[in-house]
């Protein structure tokens, strides 16, 4: 063989220390490849589960078609603003979910940039729900704009405070945020169940046997611009969510606060050496992260839920989906938007598109979402594998070219 290019030295990327730094290395290495391959792998494997358990590949394909249509994505074939058309109704519902997931995704992404893993979005979201409901039901004499503003601000602050507990514990005594935020999740779940439950302080005042809260006052309900108010029409919450995306981007990329938070995320020792207070920024980042999740609760409560029942508590999973949204979106603003669109469609598409039961049992749908979420998080974290898959065609081509070259050079 004359082909004598020296073998490249084994490349071993330096093991970066923190979570954020590790992900930054991967970001440069993977680019857009990792999310795309991740999605393909996750959907293929979840489809395989359906195909295996239903003994039919056809059913798996049908299930995906129904999820696609259930999410209202077939709207693009016949775009219309008429909400009476099923596809546009479905799309409006997907966008409703998307607004929530943008915010819970931002909650995870912001903490990630500071090197922390906030899996307490669900609990912070519940705090937002609780406070928004309380403010929305009380102060019914206020006029619309100040009432909405008050509810939104109070719920956002509640989310920030709840996450702030984990931030303070991390900064002062070094308690790992994963354990503390999980515990705060469960405390929030029981708190919400108690508040909205029988005899709870926020239970409705008319029917003492129904564990549901009061409906918030008209003055606290967000205006609806697509669909009907009171029938889950698409409210202006989606613009609040898009605004939060801009705030997230500006905060991280154009302010001192964002610079400090990112510096702490990359390398706390170096940041401290540069005069940045690590403790202050850990608490700050966690509180801002929780503020996004609290805002998500406010947008849901004021936008279309209006009231909350004890039975709704264990079924809410938007806070957890936020983890997959942020990781798939690589913790950037644009990525989070795309991730939220995808999972918003998946969330509504699985619960709604499969509810006829003609393809698979509708109760399977929610669990299928969890499987996809699990696979997405698993593969996003394992970029070595994903990049290997991504590069496989190129590697095969190279091997074939090499083989061809070597056979050509063989003496006849």
């Amino acid at each position, binding site marked *: 063989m004359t082909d004598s290019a020296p073998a490249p030295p084994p490349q*071993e990327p330096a*093991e970066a220390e923190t*979570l954020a730094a*590790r*992900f930054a290395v991967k970001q440069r290495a993977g680019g857009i490849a990792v999310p795309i391959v991740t999605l393909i792998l996750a959907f293929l494997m979840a489809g395989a*589960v359906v195909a295996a*358990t239903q003994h039919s590949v056809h059913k798996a394909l049908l299930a995906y078609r129904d999820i696609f249509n259930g999410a209202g994505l077939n709207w693009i074939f016949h775009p219309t603003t008429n909400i009476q058309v099923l596809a546009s109704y479905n799309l409006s519902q997907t966008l409703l979910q998307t607004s929530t997931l943008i915010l819970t995704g931002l909650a995870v992404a912001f903490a990630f940039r500071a090197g922390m*893993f906030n*899996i307490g979005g669900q609990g912070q979201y519940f705090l937002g729900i609780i406070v928004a409901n309380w403010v929305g039901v009380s102060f019914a004499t206020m006029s619309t704009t100040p009432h909405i503003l008050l509810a939104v601000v109070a719920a956002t602050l509640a989310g920030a405070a709840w996450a702030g507990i984990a931030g303070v*514990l991390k900064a002062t*005594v*070094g*308690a*790992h945020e*994963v*354990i*503390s935020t*999980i*515990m*705060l*999740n*469960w*405390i929030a779940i*029981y*708190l919400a*169940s*108690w508040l909205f*439950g*029988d*005899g*709870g302080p926020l239970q409705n005042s008319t029917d003492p046997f129904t564990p549901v809260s009061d409906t918030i006052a008209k003055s606290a309900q967000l205006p609806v611009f697509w669909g009907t108010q009171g029938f889950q029409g698409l409210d202006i919450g989606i613009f609040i969510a898009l605004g939060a995306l801009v705030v997230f981007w500006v905060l991280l990329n154009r302010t001192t606060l964002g610079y400090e938070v990112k510096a702490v995320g990359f390398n706390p020792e170096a940041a401290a050496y540069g005069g940045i207070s690590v403790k202050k920024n850990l608490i700050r980042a966690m509180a801002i992260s929780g503020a996004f999740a609290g805002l998500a609760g406010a947008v849901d409560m004021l936008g279309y839920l209006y009231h909350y029942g004890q039975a709704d508590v*264990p079924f809410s999973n938007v806070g*957890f989906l936020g*983890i*997959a949204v942020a*990781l798939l979106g690589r913790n950037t603003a644009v990525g989070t938007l795309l991730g939220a669109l995808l999972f918003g469609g998946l969330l509504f598409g699985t619960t709604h598109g499969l509810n006829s039961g003609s393809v698979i*049992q509708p*109760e*399977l749908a*929610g*669990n*299928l*979402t*969890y*499987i*996809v*979420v*699990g*696979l*997405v*998080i*698993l593969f*996003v*974290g*394992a*970029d*070595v*594998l994903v990049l290997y898959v991504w590069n496989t065609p190129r590697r095969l081509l190279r091997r074939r070219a090499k083989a061809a070259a070597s056979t050509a050079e063989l003496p006849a």
Partner: protein
Amino acid sequence: MTTWAARLENPISARLRSPAASGYAGIFVGAFAAFLAIPPLQARAVYWSIFVGLIAAILGVWTVSRGRRRLGWGAVAAGLLGIGLGILATRSSVGNLNAVFDATLIAQSLGFATPLVFAAVGGIFSERSGVVNIGLEGMMLMGAFWGLYGADKGGGWVVGLLVAAAAGGLLALVYAFFAIHLRSDQIVGGTAVNFLALGITGYFFVQLYHNSPVQNGTPTVPNVNFLSGSHFFGAAIGGLSILTWAGFALLIVAYLVLFKTAIGLRIRACGEHPRAADTVGINVYAIRYVCVVLSGILAALGGIYLSLGPQGNGTFQFNMTAGKGFIALAAVIFGNWRPAGAFGAALLFGFSTALALRLQVYSPQASTLFAALPYLLTLIAVAGVIGRTEAPAADGKPYVRQ
């Protein structure tokens, strides 16, 4: 770690005079202040608790003045808490007190601690070898569901145990591949495993059991009945599950394996300094794989207690682990990565769960809120002990073979 030689040079009388001794004594006396007011002692006069609690606080202040600030303030807090709880207990009715504090409280505490013991020992093995296992929760859930399935279809609880162990071990193997070979972030990977287990168990629960929680006639893990009768010990430990006793045995075996055998030394070497371990010929990857899979098997056995133990009694519910894997993880940290310490923490959390159930006699409406007690306690515990505990040096860091 105090060695035997150091202990000989430091006789017991000297150790009793040390600030640490007065600090721990203060914490103990503070706990006693609360204990005085509840059955069986049940002093109804409030000044007993106040008097004993003040002694604890004084011991604490003395400890602080001799330099052990953190421990001293802990004793002061224990004393004040003892006074507070004592006052609360003397204010409540004798009937309620007797309903909350009886011998079966011990049995229930041990019962609630059992799944935590299994998962925590699993966590200790995994983390001692250098792999953080956030996925304990999911592995427990796999054990809870597939154990039930195995017992139901296989016709015996032993089959259930085997199937649960296989399911937990398999999920752990997947996680190990991602954490060890692919070097993905262990916190992210573990979270993924939890979601995966939630989805898989939920999916097959619908597919195989149509979401109905009770499977009639499922063989459950039997209890060990001895010391029968209504006396204290019979009620406290006479009817515990086989798994609870197995948990005690596991703690002892885990201690012996980890700290008294060559294998244990190798495991700990991989968690402290994998490069050095590799240099002397230890296969770091193999050790880590074995430990992670073992942690999955043990977590699954803890999970089976939830579905087939006396409290579950042949039922499964979606997400029935409810954060117990994370509480077990907290027990690992709280117990300083040692079986005995983790057992103490598991007992504490088991006790608080049992207590929360019984506090319903005071306010049925607030019972939902009381259920948050173990999680609150975990939060406080994790916050309180950090700094005094030390994780294995290479815990959570992927190792690159050279």
